[in-house]
Structure formats: C-alpha cells, structure tokens
C-alpha cells in the first residue's frame, strides 16, 4: 500500500527540500512514525511531549481534517492524499506595559515561568468585577489587588457593621458605620496604588447588571443571596463573561467557574432556587470566620488563572470544602443542553425579576402580617397592656441578649407548639433582625392566627433605639 504525504513549505528544510514523500503506513500515526524515522528533526515540530499533534499542526487526509475523524488513528487507504497543514494564526497584543515601580512588587511572579512579565501584563490588562465586599469579596479583592490585576470593580450598597469584622478582613473598627465600597477602595488603593479600583455603590439589579458587568472580563460572585446569584449568572451568560462562583455556609464552602469556554453555568447545576427560608442565610445559620477567607482566596486564584491563561480552571467542576473535616471533594458538572439560559434552546433571554423568581415577596406582594416598631411596642408595655412577645431565636441567642417577659419558642419548634399560643390574642414576634420572625408571622397567619405582628428590626432595633444595655450581636 502506498500513499503520498505532502510536507508544508516551512518544514521542507528538514526533508532535504522534498515536498512530497511516498509512505506505506495504514494509519496517520504509522505514516508519521515512518516520516520521523526518515527525518528525525521533524518530530518535535509536529508532536508535543505526550505524543499528540501540536495545536497549530493540522493533518488532512483527502481534504478532511483528521481531528474530525479518528485523529492519529485515522485510516489511510491506497493512494490517499495526506497533508501536514500549518494552522496560521496570530494577532496584536493589547497588553499594557508595566511601570518601573511595578517590577520589584511583582518580582515573585516573574520567577514563575507560567506568569513572568508577559503574564503580569495580562493581569494588568485584566478587569475583574467583585460583587459583594463581604466575607468572600474581602480576601478575593485583597489578593487580586496584591497580584496586580489592573482594574477591580466593587459592588456593594451596605455599610460596615461590627458583626462583619469576624470575617470581612477589608475593614477595621475605624470603618464601622461607613460605606463598605468606599472603605474597601481606600484599603485596596493603600495596598497597591497601581490598581484602578472602581466603586459601584449600588445593589446589583436587573436594571443595572448588564451595564455594570459589560466593562469587565470576569465576575467574582461574593454575594450571600439567591436572587443576586441568579442575576449574576444570567447576566454573565448573556454577556459571555466567566463567573467565578463561591458560597459559604457554617463550615462548608463551594467554588466553581461557571460559563467559561463552553462549560456549565450555575443554572445547569441549580435550575431553580430552593424555596425561600429553606436555606438559612449566614446571619441566621452562622459561618466560621476563616471559611470565606479560604473560599474567597480560591476564587481569586481561579480569576488569576483565567486572566493569565494558565493551569486548569475549575470549569465543569464543583469544588466542595468542609472546614471541620478539612476535606476537599469535587463533583463533575456538565453543561445542561436543556438549561433555560445557556442551553441549546434557551427560554430565558433577558434578565428577569429575581426576587420574584426566588419566591421573595417583592413590594408588589405585601406580606399578610402587620408590623410594629420597637417604639410602639415600648409604649404598649409602658401603658400596662398585656403583650405577648414570641421570641423565636435560638436558646444561645437569648443568653447573649434578651428582653423581659417573652415567650420563647425557637423558630423550628413553633409548628409543634401551636397549642401554647392563642389564635385570638395579639402576638408580637421577635428575632434578631426581623427576618426569621417575619417567616413565623407568615406561618402563623396561614394557621388561622389573626392578630400577628412582626417586630420590625428585631431585638437589634430594641438595643439601638430603646435599651442600649441590651447587647448588640
């Protein structure tokens, strides 16, 4: 059996100028082995260390790319026309030059061949948007800034609270009550003046998300709620931006890179959010302070890899971390072809109302229960009225802070203890901030309690506005 192999112009110096060579092999692999036996200098130009074709080398058999058939095992028939064809590609770099003052700062990166000066310029060209400057956003923004990512955007609308300091390492006591985004910006500029830090002091919403995200290369999701998580995911899919996802709860963390290079998005994994209230927030469920430090740092690591185009990104992989057992585990994820946003036939093609999608009552759907302020409650107590205050917090919370004469039933024990409550009596429900108590109000109304009211702002508001001797936690 004999067929002809055509050598491309740039490689003919290795074949003594021959452009066409007669070969005998029955597969492309055999043909190439034959070629290398005759012209040993060719192998390193065509195959990589693992024996696969280099990515800028194409082999065609009878005008068909072997990558579209059986690769190197593609059959070669008598008289076949085999060609080695260079993939010809290139283009201009758009990378900024490093300033003189930056060379010493990044010298440990330059020692890494995977990064070097060129990789550092890629980081400088990079634009990363960090949504949420809390537990995850703190380490992520600090490490990305230290690493020299050129532009960092920060989205948050909150102010610094003392209870944040247990894990949100961007902030100190001098920032209490101040804007998170402004405080973060000052901290990051102090860490690395070569980085451009852009403040977006807003709540990310369906109205502004596309406009904000479009100017960035990568989004780091450091949010703590489902509506924003879905909003970020969908916006990233629509704009074609990778979404470096992280989430934390109690002692467990999750990390993945969504919507990157054909990989799955968050909705491929979770098409719909859990029912509201099923998954407690960190405020309700608690979180180990160091946990977001680990998860947020992994997010920074992945963002840096994407920008520098190195390593193996956490695409199609869902990394789970358990801080108590100190174990990492990994789930394999695939893009869901039926995914509503990134699937083959998407049903969602524009941003939606994510509060509604996640079953959270928006302003349009008013809660069925009433509210009472701590001042109104205090007036009733002072006037000598008999008031029933149902405190639904956990027992340890009552040890930290309490107000007199409450009926204490922890939230999850309320359904089993309805007989302790009088459906015709006025009941004021208390928790730390008014969120859990609101859910219990809803529950009681649905179980024929008529006169239930939520104490707005919870015991926190009581401490701040009525009795400062009650500790804030």
């Amino acid at each position, binding site marked *: 059996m004999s067929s002809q192999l*055509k050598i*491309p*112009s*740039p*490689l*003919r*110096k290795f074949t003594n100028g021959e*452009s066409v060579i007669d070969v005998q092999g029955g597969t492309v692999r055999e043909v190439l082995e034959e070629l290398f036996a005759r012209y040993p200098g060719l192998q390193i*130009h065509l195959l990589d260390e693992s024996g696969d074709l280099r990515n*800028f080398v*194409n082999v*065609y058999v009878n*005008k068909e*790319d072997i990558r579209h058939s059986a690769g190197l095992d593609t059959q070669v028939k008598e008289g076949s026309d085999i*060609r080695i*064809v*260079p*993939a*010809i*590609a*290139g*283009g*201009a*770099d*758009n*990378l900024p030059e490093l300033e003189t003052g930056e060379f010493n700062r990044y010298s440990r990166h330059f020692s890494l061949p995977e990064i070097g000066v*060129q990789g550092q310029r890629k980081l400088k060209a990079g634009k990363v948007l960090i949504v949420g400057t809390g537990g995850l956003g703190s380490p992520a923004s600090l490490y990305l800034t230290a690493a020299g990512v050129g532009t960092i955007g920060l989205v948050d609308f909150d102010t610094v609270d003392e209870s944040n300091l247990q894990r949100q390492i961007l902030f100190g006591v001098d920032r209490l009550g101040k804007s998170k985004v402004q405080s973060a910006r000052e901290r990051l500029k102090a860490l690395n003046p070569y980085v451009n830090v852009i403040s977006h002091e807003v709540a990310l919403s369906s109205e502004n998300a596309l406009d904000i995200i479009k100017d960035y290369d990568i989004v780091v999701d450091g949010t703590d709620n489902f509506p924003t998580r879905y909003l970020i995911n969908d916006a990233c899919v629509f704009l074609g931006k990778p979404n470096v996802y992280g989430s934390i709860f109690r002692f467990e963390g999750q990390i993945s890179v969504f919507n990157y290079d054909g990989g799955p998005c968050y909705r491929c994994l979770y098409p719909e959010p859990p029912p509201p209230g099923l998954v407690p927030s960190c405020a309700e469920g608690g979180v180990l302070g160091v946990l977001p430090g680990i998860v947020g740092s992994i997010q920074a690591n992945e963002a840096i890899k994407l920008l520098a185009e190195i390593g193996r990104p956490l695409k199609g992989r869902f990394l789970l971390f358990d801080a108590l057992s100190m174990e990492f585990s990994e789930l394999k994820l695939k893009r869901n072809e039926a995914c509503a946003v990134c699937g083959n036939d998407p049903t969602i093609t524009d941003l939606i109302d994510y509060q509604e999608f996640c079953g959270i009552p928006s302003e349009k759907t008013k809660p069925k229960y009433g509210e009472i302020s701590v001042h109104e409650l205090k007036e009733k107590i002072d006037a000598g009225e008999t008031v029933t205050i149902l405190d639904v917090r956990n027992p340890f919370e009552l040890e930290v802070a309490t107000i007199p004469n409450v009926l204490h039933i922890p939230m999850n024990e309320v359904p089993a203890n309805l007989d302790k409550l009088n459906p015709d009596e006025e009941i004021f429900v208390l928790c730390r901030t008014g969120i859990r108590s609101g859910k219990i109000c809803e529950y009681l109304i649905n179980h024929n309690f008529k006169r239930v009211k939520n104490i707005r702002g919870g015991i926190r508001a009581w401490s701040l506005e009525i009795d400062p001797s009650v500790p804030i936690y």
Partner: protein
Amino acid sequence: MAAIHLKSSVVSDFLRHAEKEYPNECCGFIIGTDDTKTKKGVEYLPAANTKDTNRERRFLIDPLAYQEAEDTADERGLSIISIVHSHPDHPDKPSEFDRNHAWPGFSYIIVSVENGNAKNYRSWQLAPDRNNFNEEIIKIIQE
C-alpha cells in the same frame, strides 16, 4: 541579520490589503524561492481572516486556503516563504500570541496600520528555540 528580498509589487500589494481590511487584521501569503541562502518573494496571495470575532486583534487562515496557496506555489516551482498580517493601531512587532502560533522557517511580516494608513512593516523569524523572534532585513527588488 538575515534578509528577505521582495519584489516591489509584493510590498505594495500587502500594504494595500492591510489598509483595505482596516480596522480588522489582514493576512496573506508570499510565495517565492528559498535556496537557504536567499529568500525571494515574487507574489502576494491575500487570504481571508476567518476569525469569527475580534478580527481587530486576531487573524486565522483556513487550513484549506493554506493548501490552495501551497498548491499554487508548488505548481509554479515556488513555495510559501512568508506569512503577512497587519496590526491595526499597534506596532509592527510580533506579539506573544504571534510567537505561540509561529512556525519555523517562515518570515513573518507585520504591517502596522494607523487610522487606516499603513505606517511601517518589518519581517521576523522565529528563533530555533521558539523563545523569541529575530528581525530580518527586507530588501526591495525591482521587477
């Protein structure tokens, strides 16, 4: 410094092509002779930039177009000696991306186009260790 000799019509053809494709990158082949001592380019064959996106910063030549150009050259006893591409609003120096995709033996000619006008062009050869490009002298020869 190594040298590449180009017919003046070759140069004017690729400069015109680079200006025509602005703000996108143009790409094409130069065919000619390479007798190991002297490279001589006699004709410029423009190619289509088949990148779907970001054609201002990237080019890609269809492998079938490469085969046609090589066949054209072979039929005339010539070979492909150079790949030309433009850098719109960027210098005529090879990028990191260019180096990662370069082949040994080809002369890579880069045309810098500013605001639609070809400003400068230089020729580069990949070093044998692939670590950098070496500049070549371009000598223009008359028809």
